[in-house]
């Protein structure tokens, strides 16, 4: 991942972050274009979004200009693909399971999966630790705080 970013032609790479912001601003303008604008006294819901959208685009252009002009400053940071993948999966699993399976299974799976973001994780210690963490979570959230979330599917 890291090497890929650095193989890009220099100018395009430096303009990347500003361009993404520019696209975000344009998408925002596109969506809010249909909102009623109203007038100054009775502003519609679209008035401020348009102003903000325009400003974001303008600043994005300025940022691209600056980034392209100052080569050494525009170095992107290192990527962490393993962390990105496993942390994302863990949180998505939690989100997908919490309403169906309840708190305990969701916590357990989230811990197990997220632990594999560390490339030296081994299955057995992970399982033991996940059990302990789940127990702790159950004690904290359900016993101590009495959060209104079912432990298992009711």
């Amino acid at each position, binding site marked *: 991942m890291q090497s890929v970013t650095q193989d890009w032609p220099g100018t395009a790479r430096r303009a990347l*972050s500003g361009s993404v*912001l520019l696209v975000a601003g344009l998408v*925002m303008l596109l*969506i809010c274009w249909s*909102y009623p604008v109203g*007038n*100054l*006294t*009775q*502003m*519609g*819901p*679209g*008035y401020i*979004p348009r102003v*903000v*959208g325009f*400003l*974001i685009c303008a*600043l*994005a252009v*300025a*940022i691209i200009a*600056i980034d392209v002009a*100052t080569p050494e*400053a525009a170095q*992107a*940071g290192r*990527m*962490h693909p393993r*962390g*990105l993948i496993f*942390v*994302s999966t*863990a*949180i*998505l699993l*939690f*989100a*997908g399971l*919490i*309403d169906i399976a309840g708190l305990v299974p*969701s*916590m357990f799976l*989230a*811990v197990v999966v*997220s*632990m594999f*973001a*560390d*490339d*030296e994780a081994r299955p057995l210690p992970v399982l033991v630790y*996940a059990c302990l*963490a789940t127990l*702790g*979570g159950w004690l904290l959230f359900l016993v101590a*705080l*009495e959060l*209104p*979330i079912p432990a298992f599917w009711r």
Partner: protein
Amino acid sequence: MIDQFLLGLSVVLQPEILMYAFIGVFIGQLIGVLPGIGAITAISLLLPVTFYLDATTSMIMLAGIYYGSQYGGSIASILLNLPGTPSSVVTCLEGYPLAQRSRAGLALFVAACSSFVGGIVGVAILVLAAIPMTIIALRFGAPEYAMLVILGLLAASLIGTGSQIRSFAMVLLGIALGLVGADATTGYYRFVAMPEMADGISLVSLAMGLFGVSEIIRNASRRSPPGPALSITMRDVLPTRAEARSLVLPIVRGSGIGSFFGALPGTGAAIASFMAYAMERRFSRTPEKFGKGHLPGLAAPESANNAAAQTGFIPTLTLGIPGDAVMALIIGALILNGIIPGPRLAVDQPELFWGVIASFFVGNIILLLINIPLIKLWVLLLRVPYQKLYPVIIVMICVGVYSHRTSVTDVVLTLAFGVLGYLMKNYRFEPAPVMLGFVLGPLLEDNFRRTMLLYGGDFTIFLTRPISAMLVACSAVLIAFAVWSGVSAMRKPVHSTP
């Protein structure tokens, strides 16, 4: 005033009430440490208990939870980069880098002490100047709020460690995120992709994502923990004489800013801590140290947000108007005890009114006393290898965010913001201005549009009302400063970035 305060003290120092004050601040602090589970959850959990207590005791306990959780929030921000409230976002900026440099103990100590001073100053203002502050607060109408927010946002664009143009772009991104949901003036749905987003993006998921999750993604696969091994002798916790001296003025300024902004009903504490931070940075002789664990940058906003947490009770106690959701809960508890809060509270219920105020004083002392020994314990937490810590943090974030609104969408959005925050940092965009834009944007739009509605689209209203005009002048000075420093930076050769 002093006599009445003594009356209040005599109420609080009864053993039973003192015990509830202790329980309140203690539970508040513990729960404040948990990411995403803030004062609101804690207070609504304990609300049924207050049915069995008298009004003074329940109010003292609930208020204790509130300002106790402010302390707790700072702990999570410093140790783990997990801000539970907008005001603790600023704490992350300097506190977390300190913890990464193995100076977590020092950071916690400074935070506790500045919080304490801020809290005490706040209480003093509450005792001595509640009524004049109320009068000033009532002068703040829609035009004043609009201008105040603009001033705050301008100050925020000075916060980032990078270029001001990037910071300002991030403020705007925050405002854009704040636009999601039903428009406050017309109820029109904007950028609502699914019904769960109709009430907007949750502050908790944005803060936990941008700060907490993004940091975990970055560090989860990193093997050796950053920095040398931790030692926790008392000497590492205490600041040096020179450091202590450098903190006096920031704490004083922070307490002053916090006391003033806290009294305004609305988003006082958040504006206060950002303003305090921006001001320290602006007037510091070493602005380049900010963002890397600079103590004055930690002390000023910490004292500001705790001062604001105390003066935030001014509108609640003198007018019966809740400044935020937590205050509304506390007022709700009063009402359930058959007391209708309002201007007559101080006259009709002097023991309650002054007892509660005195309890803030006592509560802050209790907090300081339980915090200093706890510092060692918290620092021990950092000895746990990060590989064991982060899965638990992920679960805590997930449960906290989910329980906040019982919403799965919020959990997914937290992840989205986590990835966004991670990528932003990789491309030198700061997350803190996004938070401020997000918090203040809706306030700005709301009050600007209301001003236009109330005064028929007349822009001169901002200049003809005295307080508003003053705020406009401050903003102009800030802009002038920024332009001036920009120009002088350009004149300098190469290495200073714009």
